[in-house]
């Protein structure tokens, strides 16, 4: 394995070299300092490398320009482009310029770097690739194939149970977007397909700052897709990183979530699957709900079969576990479980199996908050009451409670609730 590492920072070059050698001890790595050397000339043996790792800021050069020049060469190997966090437009431009993968530099871990290089150097016809890698390669191929009017699908960035997620961009202005392509096995399931398509119609109706913006949906050949807003700030799961956040920050996120619930409930929609992965942050720090894959119109006939339980066990309300008819209070409960996690850094309930965790929501009293968080005890109790009759009835009640009890800790709402996005 031969790797060319182009970065103006000595410490980054050292670190990435070490990561690579920890996986491929015999790797030959050329550390290329753009502060000392110009863009590789035509005589430079670029084709002798398997992968080029190229930073987007090169001190006295622009990584994107270098990328374009290198990619014009017929002997150019795969290029992994390093971008800044929260600046996805650079990633969009890099992918359009021919980068084969990108990683956010500030979030680049040993594991991510190795996975990326492994993917770039994998031979798809080899029989030895792992099932995970084979699935990723299949995802890349699908992304390259799908055609959506006005949208360029650029790169596979995630895989969920029902859909693959791609970085995409609007062709006319490079605006970063997300395209979700439903998995084929789900498309064959008529009910799941209906749920996916309902996500579009539900979210389009909401038009709130607190809900992910949807830009289109449809089918390409037999692939159902959804085009939506890209969130530079990542999700709450990433923000928490397995730890608690400061109580004032937890309260701020929680209140934003309440505004979001207020907006969707006002339209008669329950989310039913609140979890950290479904709460996304924009670059300005505002929060929005995504993934309405199992959301459902309160007034619609319940398509959920008898005894079928949807949602994520860690955040399920007791009535959801029981498969009972749901109302706004199910989302209030799940939001309470999320608040507990934000305040303590722990899950409210743990267990060996999903069923065990779900049953705790039904039968086990929530663990008390640590002593330093006593101020939040009453709020928590009213959010996660097992008896929904004793719970807050709706998001407005919660917001009123927060305003009375924690007024000094809360910023003004950044956006008027009545103000809608065009």
């Amino acid at each position, binding site marked *: 394995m031969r790797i060319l590492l182009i970065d103006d*920072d*000595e*410490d*980054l070059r*050292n*670190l990435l070299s*070490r990561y690579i050698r*920890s996986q491929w001890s015999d790797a030959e790595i050329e550390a290329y300092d753009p502060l000392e050397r110009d863009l590789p000339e035509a005589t430079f043996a670029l084709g002798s490398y398997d992968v080029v790792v190229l930073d987007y*800021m090169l*001190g006295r050069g622009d990584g994107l320009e270098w990328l374009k020049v290198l990619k014009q060469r017929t002997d150019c190997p795969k290029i992994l482009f390093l971008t*800044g966090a929260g600046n996805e437009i650079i990633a969009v431009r890099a992918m359009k310029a021919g980068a084969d993968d990108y990683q956010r*530099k*500030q*979030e*680049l871990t*040993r594991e991510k770097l190795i996975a990326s290089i492994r993917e770039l150097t994998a031979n798809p016809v080899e029989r030895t690739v792992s099932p995970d890698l084979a699935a990723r390669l299949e995802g890349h191929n699908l992304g390259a194939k799908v055609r959506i009017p006005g949208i360029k699908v650029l790169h596979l960035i995630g895989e969920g149970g029902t859909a693959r997620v791609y970085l995409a961009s609007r062709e006319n202005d490079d605006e970063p977007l997300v395209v979700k392509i439903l998995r084929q096995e789900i498309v064959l399931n008529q009910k799941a397909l209906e749920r996916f398509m309902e996500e579009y119609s539900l979210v389009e109706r909401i038009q709130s700052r607190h809900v992910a913006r949807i830009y289109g949906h449809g089918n390409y050949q037999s692939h159902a897709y959804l085009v939506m807003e890209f969130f530079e700030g990542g999700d709450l799961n990433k923000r928490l990183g397995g730890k608690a956040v400061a109580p004032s920050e937890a309260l701020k996120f929680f209140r934003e979530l309440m505004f979001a619930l207020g907006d969707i409930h006002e339209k008669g929609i329950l989310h039913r699957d609140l979890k950290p992965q479904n709460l996304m942050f924009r670059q300005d720090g505002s929060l929005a709900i995504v993934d309405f894959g199992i959301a459902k119109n309160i007034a619609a006939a319940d398509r959920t079969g008898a005894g079928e339980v949807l949602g994520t066990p860690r955040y399920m309300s007791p009535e959801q576990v029981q498969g009972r008819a749901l109302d706004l209070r199910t989302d209030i409960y799940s939001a309470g479980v999320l608040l507990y996690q934000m305040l303590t850094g722990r899950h409210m309930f743990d267990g060996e199996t999903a069923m065990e965790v779900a049953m705790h929501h039904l039968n086990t009293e929530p663990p008390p908050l640590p002593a330093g968080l006593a101020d939040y005890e009453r709020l928590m109790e009213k959010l996660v009451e097992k008896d929904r009759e004793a719970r807050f009835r709706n998001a407005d009640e919660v917001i009123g409670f927060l305003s009375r009890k924690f007024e000094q800790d809360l910023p003004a709402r950044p956006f008027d609730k009545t103000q809608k996005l065009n």
Partner: protein
Amino acid sequence: MNESDYKVTVAKDLADLIPVFMRNRRKEVETLRVALAAADFEQLRQLGHRMKGVGNSYGFAHVSTLGKYIEDGARSGDRASLQAWIAEYDEYLAKVQIAYE
């Protein structure tokens, strides 16, 4: 700053890289000071940006945080804030405790 901000955990196999990393950070403080004295905000912005990128990568989250503040301060030309952040960076480097796991 909290006491915990001064504690950093680094993977054992990176231990031999840390002396160079720390030496470069100390040099960075001096370069920041010179850039501030010359009111070279573009260089301050670039240095802040580099700190932001390299700090987290090595597990020094506070270096990244200070890098962001310095980058933002350079963009707005806020000399007083920049001076304070550079002083904090210097103090941080003097006090940081590194554990290897």
